[in-house]
């Protein structure tokens, strides 16, 4: 029994794609999620579940509402309808910080690093809630402060090393190349010890060799930390290769769900991406 058991909600339909996850409760269970901005419906009827060690993809044309879904999952926006169950707990009314503590971390489409801080400090900010040191101990630099800082440094270096960033630990985040910044953002998200990590276009701006390296790293993150990964990406090669399950959205609604193979051959998806064939062509 964990500390949240009181709030447990029974999860009914589980449509997991990964064999290893069969029989386990999903880490994320989204039901009938929707949000309106003014009169405009940005997301509607969004349903999906993600298994505890699953890599899932969210794809769709520009403006389909993908980032909005991420913002809903991380409580940047509060949904108009529906519910989000993270580890079985409804996140309704929680703020972003609380949802992160519960187990969801993310990266951003337009990179949001702490540019004036070193890469190492960026990761240490990510570890904030893992560092056990009271406010008074911080203010007066009591021995517990030095102990916790030493531990934090070690763990942050480990994480940077894991992402292949150990040699840039002391550089300012803002001065790093684009691809490195993206990886550092993943590193910072991992530092908050999440159960699921959301990656918003992790390969954007990367060259093919960087992307290939990233694909390898995404799998390695899942295998090492045993966490779920949910990613938005326009690079179809990456999505089809690393994702076990894929959700396709258009105009804020799910138009297809399935394995990469199923998605590739789905007529609705082809139509959304390439447009409808004209009658005359038929």
């Amino acid at each position, binding site marked *: 029994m964990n500390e949240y058991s009181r709030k447990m909600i029974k999860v009914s339909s589980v449509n997991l794609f990964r064999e290893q996850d069969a029989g386990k409760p999903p880490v994320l269970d989204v039901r009938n999620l929707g949000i309106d901005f003014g009169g405009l419906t940005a997301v509607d009827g969004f349903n999906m579940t993600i298994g505890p060690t699953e890599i899932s993809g969210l794809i769709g044309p520009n403006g389909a509402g993908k980032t909005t879904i991420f913002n809903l999952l991380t409580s940047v926006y509060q949904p108009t309808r529906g519910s989000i169950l993270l580890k079985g707990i409804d996140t309704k009314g929680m703020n972003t910080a609380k949802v992160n503590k519960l187990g969801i971390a993310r990266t951003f489409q337009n990179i949001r690093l702490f540019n004036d801080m070193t890469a190492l400090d960026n990761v240490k900010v990510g570890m904030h809630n893992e560092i056990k040191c009271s406010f008074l101990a911080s*203010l007066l630099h009591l021995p517990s402060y030095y102990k916790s800082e030493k531990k934090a440094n070690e763990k942050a270096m480990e994480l940077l090393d894991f992402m292949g960033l150990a040699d840039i630990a002391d550089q300012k985040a803002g001065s790093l190349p684009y691809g490195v910044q993206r990886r550092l953002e993943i590193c*910072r998200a991992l530092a908050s010890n999440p159960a699921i990590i959301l990656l918003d276009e992790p390969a954007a701006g990367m060259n093919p060799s960087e992307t290939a390296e990233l694909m390898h790293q995404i799998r390695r993150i899942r295998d090492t930390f045993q966490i779920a990964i949910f990613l938005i990406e326009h690079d179809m090669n990456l999505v089809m290769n690393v994702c076990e399950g894929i959700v396709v959205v258009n105009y804020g609604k799910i138009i297809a769900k399935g394995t990469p193979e199923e998605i590739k051959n789905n007529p609705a998806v082809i139509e959304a991406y390439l447009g409808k064939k004209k009658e005359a062509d038929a």
Partner: protein
Amino acid sequence: MKKLWNNKTTRTNLTTYLVVTVAFVVMQLMSSFGQLGSAMKGYLIPVCAYIVMAVSLNLLVGVCGELSLGHAGFMGIGAFTGIVIAALLQDAIPNDTLLLVVAMFAGGIMAGIFGFLIGIPALRLRGDYLAIVTLAFGEILKNIFSNLYVGLDSEGLHMAVSTGKVQLLEGGRMILDGPVGATGITKLSTFPMGFVLILFTLFVVLNLINSKEGRAIKAVRDNRIATESVGINVTAFRMKAFVVSAFLAGMAGTLFGLNFSSLQASKFNFNASINVLVFVVLGGMGNILGSVISTAVLYILPEAMRGLDDLRMILYAVVLIIVMLFTWSPSVKNAVQSVTASVQEKLRKNKKEAVNNE
């Protein structure tokens, strides 16, 4: 030790402590050898108080990126609390230094409590709106101080917010008398205690900056949304910084208040808040040593120019504007660069010609 010195932040921090200590020792020596004029001597303690004000405001403005225009309000809380506490405990604590320390902590704690209460509504706002609300709180506090009546007699403290309400027994006296302010204050503040308070402030602020709390505070300034995304409750952090800053300002206020025999609430008006902000901005945002130096220089500058009489404040204004233009404006900076470049070019040419002529 060498390893410590190689760490950049440790080095900056040690330099800060060192500069402050050297300045204190020099001033103390000059003072004891009679090298300081009486006017200059009179500035020593207020300068200490304002340095603490500037460093604590820098924590808010420079480090956290929150603009506060009501910092003098906290100073006022500290000053008047300290004055009342010092009067109340005068007989209980015979040692002046100890009494001052107790009064300073009382002033700091009171200011911290008010900081917390004000922070609850104010920190829901951001940027210019936060600035306006702090301005409003500063004005409200000043308004309350100038209508606060506190008297002390054998029965204890009596308080009221309108004139004539405080009835004292025989032998009692008014500590705060509304618009007249505090009178008959026992001067407890000393320059060495001012120095100790500066060291304490530096210790707290520098430690805070170099801890996980400080990292979080800087992170909030850089990117609020990203900070929240890694599980940091941004409002709680802004609040911690706000309360610590108010606490230190309160202590500075007590030091300042117990340096004069009488004190009016108007000392803690909007202009006082603005002056501290000027010290912080000119000293460099987030640069703690910068705040210390700019406060010392700028506090004494208008006083040192007293000989110029009417012109001094106008010169101060002009210096302020020019310094801002030279340190911030890209166009002025470019102009300065091109001028220095052409001067250097000319000098080189002259040198070359001189060499050729030989």
